[in-house]
Structure formats: structure tokens, C-alpha cells
């Protein structure tokens, strides 16, 4: 047996092949023969080493050097430098990828990673990686062993509910779509994750696209659909790219397309992109958008399960819902329902953001308390400040105060408390946050994103925003709180879709839990958190000011006057409350009142 001092593994993945991997191998062999190294260095073919983006890639052992982006012309130099002189050719060395994942760190003890189990573990661009993690086993089981009725029964026993936020039981949705009489049916995946601060679905699509595809094929088999769409927002180009590649690979292996796994069942899938409209996350608006129309919601009923895409029965679920399906089939409904509470089973992903130490993606069993999420998983509030509120459910959700910290995170508890589960955005706010300002911020967002089809939402959100603007601007009037409550009630009960029905929630919940702040703004003309510019004043503490003139020199509007070495003074009539003086003062002499 021959012994080699070096082994060169050349990636012959299709992508590297197309970029000349074979020519590179030939050139390597030729050069090794020419330099007499052919008995010392062995060249081997291997599967994918890295991203193949630079292509062709090779790995040199025993050093473990990863080269990429070489062409046949570079070979003589490489052989000369590396194999003769033993010097690493730096310009071709593939940089070691940053191992720290800013979005998704190692799970804490309270977390259970089911949906996110493959994220960061497998190569999302390689279907074999997914298959090695029991991928597509659930599909095989469903297609060979189970009838659609069996699948429905499993889904029912699992207790899986829609992860898009509303929490409708998944098996019921599937059952309605299955029962609807039609030759043509569709399966749809809602990947239009528009809530600011939420990126759970993007992460799943980018890191584990096949779990979503597999879930969709199983849903299609159950309801009898032959065609499906994934509607992904335009802001997620990498997710779209990863999905398209995954679909291609699944088709090549007969896991998607005609005659899946030789069963006679066919299902094809296509990715459709949104174009920057938040309302398209609403299921009927989404369908209009896929149909090539303006993304305006349709009245329900008829529900999508009866009349969905092109008026055909359609099953539409969220990314995370589909991603849960394969594991439920494989590990059994009892495994899934062992997590969670009586009515809310399984785990849920959340995107933690705001004034919290550990921001990023988490996955926790339902029924966990907000306190556990914020203090155990999220490591508490930044800078040792006080917790003030947590906002769940995106712009349609509500703000929950400290008294609700021991609330269990499940569909019913959250909605009873005046918020909602939502898709999983969770924004934590500390004592420095003004709740009226937050309500105004969210209303500004929904008002801007209202599609304008129905009057309560179009006009109502605008009116609510005007009142909130007025209150934050220091011009709140007696009766504004009652007016807000009235407007909220009307917008909520009369709007056509979830956007309008949910738009008043941030206002209603802050009115309920932080009414005193509204009153302070309106009656005392004070912003207790010192956020609303019109209600605060910067002033210099005479005793602390050294008269260094830094503030006066930095003030953009020359509102600060004073002699050198004597206390300065801010003229509140000129001051625009930009806060520059407070930032530049070296003596903390400037206070906000």
C-alpha cells in the first residue's frame, strides 16, 4: 500500500464542476507528475466542501487548508508553493466562517429546539444533509403507509395550531380543505413575515427549507392538492433563493413533482415573491397577490378552505406550522403534545428584541411564562434597568405590563390578557420607554400599511394616529382618551381583515395598563418617561455646570448662552430637544425635566 504525505480533496459538486473542477483536477495531476510529486500527493474527488460559490474548491490534508476560487492556471503556482515549498497560498484560502451566530445562539436550558433543530446544523443548500437528519422520512411514511384520514387523525391528536398567530387548529383547516369538493386544490405557505422585529420564518427558510417543503407535500397529499405556492416577501431574497434551490433538489430526487416516490401522487411547488406590502401577510390578501392582483383582503366567509386561490379550495399555513409537520408524523403526535399546555401544544419560536440582554431567536415550549422567557432565556433587561412592558404579536399585538409577567405564553392566555400570540415577535421595553409613544409608533406603521379597501381601517387608523400625535405633541385634550377608546372599538369591530381588527390593540392595551401615562401627557403635559420631545425640557444644573462651553458650541440652534467658567443656560424657546448637549457634556450637568 502506498503512503501519501498529502491528500487533496477536490469538490465535484455540480456547481464546482460547472466552474471547472475536472479541469482543475487534471491540471493538478499533470503538475504533480511534472514535478515528480505524484507519489507523494494524492488527488481525490469529494462531495461538497463549502459553499461552492467561488468554485472550484479543494481541501488539503493533513494541514486542513481549504482553498477556493482556483482555476487550472493557478495550479503550477499552488503546487510549487504548497507542495514543494510547504507554504500556504493565502490568496486562495477560504476564510473560516464566523462561527458565532448572532441570530441563534446555543439553546438555554429552558429552550427546546424542534422547528429550529436543523438551523445552523445542516447545510441548507444540500438536500442530502437534510435527508441525513431523517429528512423526507415523514413524507415516505405518509405516502406509503398512511391514508389522508390517518394523517388528519395524527394532526388532530398532536394538537398543532396555526403558528401564524391566530392559532386555528391545523387539522381542522386541512379537514375543511379536504372536504371541499373540487378537482383542483392548492396548498399555500405564508412566508410573508412582515412584523417589524420578527425573523423566525426567514431563518427557517434560509436554514432548513426542506422541512417546510416536506410539510407542504404532506398537506397536499392529505387534502388532495397537486399544486402549491410559497409566498415570500421581497425583502427576503436569500430565503427565496434557498427555497428555489431546495425545490430543484427535491424534484431531482423525486420528492417533489410528478409521481412522488413512485406513488402516483404528484405535487409541484413554486415560490412567489411579494412586493413590499405588509397587508399581504393576511391570508386572503396574500392570495390576491399570488393571483397577480392588488393585495387587498377579501371578505370571509367564504374561507380559503372553500374558496381560496382562483376560487379553489386552498389550505394556507404559516412556515413554522409546516415545519412542525414532518416531526409530528415521524415522532408521533404524543411526542408533540407532550410539550405545551392543554390547549396549546408544542413549541414556538420567538424573536426577542428590544431592551433585553440576549436578543435573537429562541424556541420554547408553549406554556412557559413571560418571566422565564425574559429573565431566564433572554437574560434580563439591559443595563440593569426595570422591566416595563413586553409587546407580543407584532403591530397587531398588545403591550403587557410587569403584572402579567407570570402569564403563561399560550394562545388563550395572551389573548385574554389583551394581546395575542402573533407570529412570534417579542419586544421587551424598559422603564425609559414611553407607552404613548410606542402606541403612536405602531399606529404610524399600521396606518401606513393599511391597504385602504375598507373605511374603518383606512380612516380609523388615521384618526387614531392624529389623536396620538396630538397627545405626544403636548396638545392632548380632555376627552381624548374616551375618543381613542371609541375609535378603537369601531375600527376593531368593523374592519374587514386582521390588520384593521388588530390595529387598535397596541392602543387599547396601553390604555388599559398604562392609562396614567396618557393622563400625564394630556392633563399634566408631562411625559413620565421623558421621551416625547414636546413635553420635555433640557436644563443645565447650575451647581454642576463648569462653564466649559462645549454644549454651547455644539448646539445646532444656538439655544445655549453663558460666559466661560460660569453656568450656562438653555433657552427653551429656541431649543429643539435634539439632546446633543446632554451627549457632549462631560460633567452630566444637563438634565431632562
Amino acid at each position, binding site marked *: 500500500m502506498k503512503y501519501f504525505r498529502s491528500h487533496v480533496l477536490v469538490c465535484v459538486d455540480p456547481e464546482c464542476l460547472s466552474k471547472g473542477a475536472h479541469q482543475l483536477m487534471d491540471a493538478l495531476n499533470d503538475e504533480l507528475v511534472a514535478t515528480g510529486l505524484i507519489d507523494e500527493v494524492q488527488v481525490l474527488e469529494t462531495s461538497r466542501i463549502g459553499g461552492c460559490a467561488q468554485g472550484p474548491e479543494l481541501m488539503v490534508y493533513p494541514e486542513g487548508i481549504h482553498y477556493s476560487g482556483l482555476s487550472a492556471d493557478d495550479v503550477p503556482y499552488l503546487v510549487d508553493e504548497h507542495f514543494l515549498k510547504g507554504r500556504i497560498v493565502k490568496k486562495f484560502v477560504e476564510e473560516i466562517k464566523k462561527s458565532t451566530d448572532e441570530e441563534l445562539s446555543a439553546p438555554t436550558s429552558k429552550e427546546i429546539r424542534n422547528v429550529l433543530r436543523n438551523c445552523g446544523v445542516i447545510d441548507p443548500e444540500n438536500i442530502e444533509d437534510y435527508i441525513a437528519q431523517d429528512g423526507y422520512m415523514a413524507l415516505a411514511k405518509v405516502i406509503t403507509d398512511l391514508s389522508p384520514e390517518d394523517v388528519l387523525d395524527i394532526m388532530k391528536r398532536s394538537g398543532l395550531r396555526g403558528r401564524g398567530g391566530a392559532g386555528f387548529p391545523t387539522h381542522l383547516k386541512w379537514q375543511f380543505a379536504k372536504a371541499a369538493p373540487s378537482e383542483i386544490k392548492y396548498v399555500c405557505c405564508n412566508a410573508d413575515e412582515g412584523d417589524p422585529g420578527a425573523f423566525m420564518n426567514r431563518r427557517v427558510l434560509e436554514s432548513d427549507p426542506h422541512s417546510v417543503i416536506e410539510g407542504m407535500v404532506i398537506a397536499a397529499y392529505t387534502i388532495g392538492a397537486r399544486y402549491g405556492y410559497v409566498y415570500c416577501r421581497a425583502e427576503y431574497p436569500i430565503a427565496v433563493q434557498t427555497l428555489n434551490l431546495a425545490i430543484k433538489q427535491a424534484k431531482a430526487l423525486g420528492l417533489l413533482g410528478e409521481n412522488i416516490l413512485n406513488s402516483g401522487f404528484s405535487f409541484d411547488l413554486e415560490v*412567489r*415573491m*411579494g412586493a*413590499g406590502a405588509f397587508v399581504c401577510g393576511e391570508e386572503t390578501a396574500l392570495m390576491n397577490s*399570488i393571483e*397577480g*392582483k392588488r393585495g387587498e383582503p377579501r371578505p370571509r366567509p367564504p374561507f380559503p378552505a372553500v374558496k381560496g386561490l382562483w376560487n379553489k379550495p386552498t389550505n394556507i399555513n404559516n412556515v413554522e406550522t409546516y415545519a412542525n409537520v414532518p416531526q409530528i408524523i415521524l415522532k408521533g403526535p404524543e411526542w408533540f403534545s407532550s410539550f405545551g399546555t392543554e390547549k396549546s401544544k408544542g413549541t414556538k419560536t420567538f424573536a426577542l428584541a428590544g431592551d433585553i440582554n440576549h436578543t435573537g431567536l429562541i424556541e420554547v415550549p408553549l406554556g412557559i411564562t413571560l418571566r422565564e422567557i425574559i429573565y431566564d432565556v433572554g437574560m434580563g433587561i439591559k443595563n440593569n434597568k426595570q422591566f416595563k412592558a413586553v409587546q407580543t404579536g407584532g403591530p397587531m399585538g398588545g403591550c403587557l405590563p410587569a403584572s402579567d409577567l407570570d402569564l403563561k405564553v399560550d394562545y388563550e392566555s395572551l389573548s385574554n390578557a389583551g394581546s395575542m400570540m402573533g407570529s412570534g415577535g417579542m419586544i421587551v421595553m424598559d422603564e425609559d420607554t414611553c407607552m404613548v409613544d410606542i402606541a403612536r409608533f405602531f399606529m404610524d406603521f399600521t396606518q401606513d400599511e393599511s*391597504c385602504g379597501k375598507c373605511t374603518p381601517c383606512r380612516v380609523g387608523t388615521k384618526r387614531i394616529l392624529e389623536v396620538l400625535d396630538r397627545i405626544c405633541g403636548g396638545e392632548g385634550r380632555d376627552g381624548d382618551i374616551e375618543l381613542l377608546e371609541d375609535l378603537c372599538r369601531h375600527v376593531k369591530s368593523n374592519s374587514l381583515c386582521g390588520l384593521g381588527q388588530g390595529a387598535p390593540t397596541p392602543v387599547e392595551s396601553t390604555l388599559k395598563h398604562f392609562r396614567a401615562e396618557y393622563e400625564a401627557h394630556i392633563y399634566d403635559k408631562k411625559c413620565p418617561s421623558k421621551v416625547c420631545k414636546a413635553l420635555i425640557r433640557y436644563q443645565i444644573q447650575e451647581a454642576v455646570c463648569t462653564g466649559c462651553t462645549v454644549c454651547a458650541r455644539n448646539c*445646532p440652534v444656538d439655544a445655549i448662552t453663558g460666559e466661560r467658567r460660569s453656568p450656562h443656560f438653555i433657552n427653551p424657546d429656541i431649543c429643539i430637544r435634539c439632546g*446633543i448637549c446632554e451627549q457632549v457634556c462631560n460633567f452630566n450637568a444637563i438634565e431632562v425635566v
Partner: protein
Amino acid sequence: MVKYIQNIPANDPLMIPEQREIIDQVIQENKTKPGATMVVLGELQNRIGYVSEALQSYIANQLEVPVSTVHGVVTFYSFFTTTPRGKHTIKFCMGTACYVGGVPQLIEKAKQILGIDIDQTTPDGNITLEICRCVGACSQAPVVVIDDEVLGRVKPSKIPQLMKKVQE
């Protein structure tokens, strides 16, 4: 083939052979897809950079849908633009602090260098000037956002240097 559309400006993508080829190719590829309007518009916005009025009429005709439908879709979604956008955008923050901090002077300087107004794009399609709402960096005023980079405390004299980065 485009006779039915009147008064097409000479610089419209429809009149530029290379772009016209892309347009026809995109339409041909997606024409038979159900819900083709969104697909075609999305693809063309990406590849051409904007969807002109003439192009909207052309798409409507090719896909056999009313022009009003195409126009309705284009104006509904924020992703579609009807005028060309540059490869780079320079946004000027018009928050109060930035406004009094000298953004108007910066705008003047930028307009002077590029020879275009706000919401316009340089003739080579490289840079678009825009005004944006407060970016929340008031302590850095005046703020200019070039593509995704927020630049604070910008002085008019520094504008030429900053623009060099994105000028070709």
C-alpha cells in the same frame, strides 16, 4: 409592435433594444403562469429598475389584462417604482435636528455636484437623491444615509468626498 402605445419617450426601456429584449424574454417566460402580472412586474422591476408608464401598457397588452389592473398593482406595492432609481441612493434626513443642523445646505451641495434635484437620478443611472424621515440619529445631525450606511455630522465640504465612494 408597440404602435398602440402613444408617445413613448426615447429613453424608455421599451425603446432600448437590449432592455426590450429582457422585457420580451421575461414576458414570454412567465406569460402562461397563473397570476403572471406580479411575477412579470417583480422580475422587470429587478432587472430594468423601474416600470414606466409605457412599459405598464405594454405588459398589460402582452398579458391581456387591462392597463388599469397593471397600474393598480404597480401603485399598490411599495417595491415597484415608476421612475428609474439609481444604483445608489443618497438620503437626507429631514428630522428637525438635521434640518436645523444644516441638511438643506448639504442638499444644495449634492444637487450642485450631481446636477439633479431631489427624487431624481443622475443620467447615468448611478445615484438617486432622496429625502427621508427622521432616522433617529438626531445626536449625529446632520445625517446623510448613503445606501445603508448612516453618516453623521456631515459638513457641506465633506459631501464631494462622500459622494466619490458611490460615484463611478
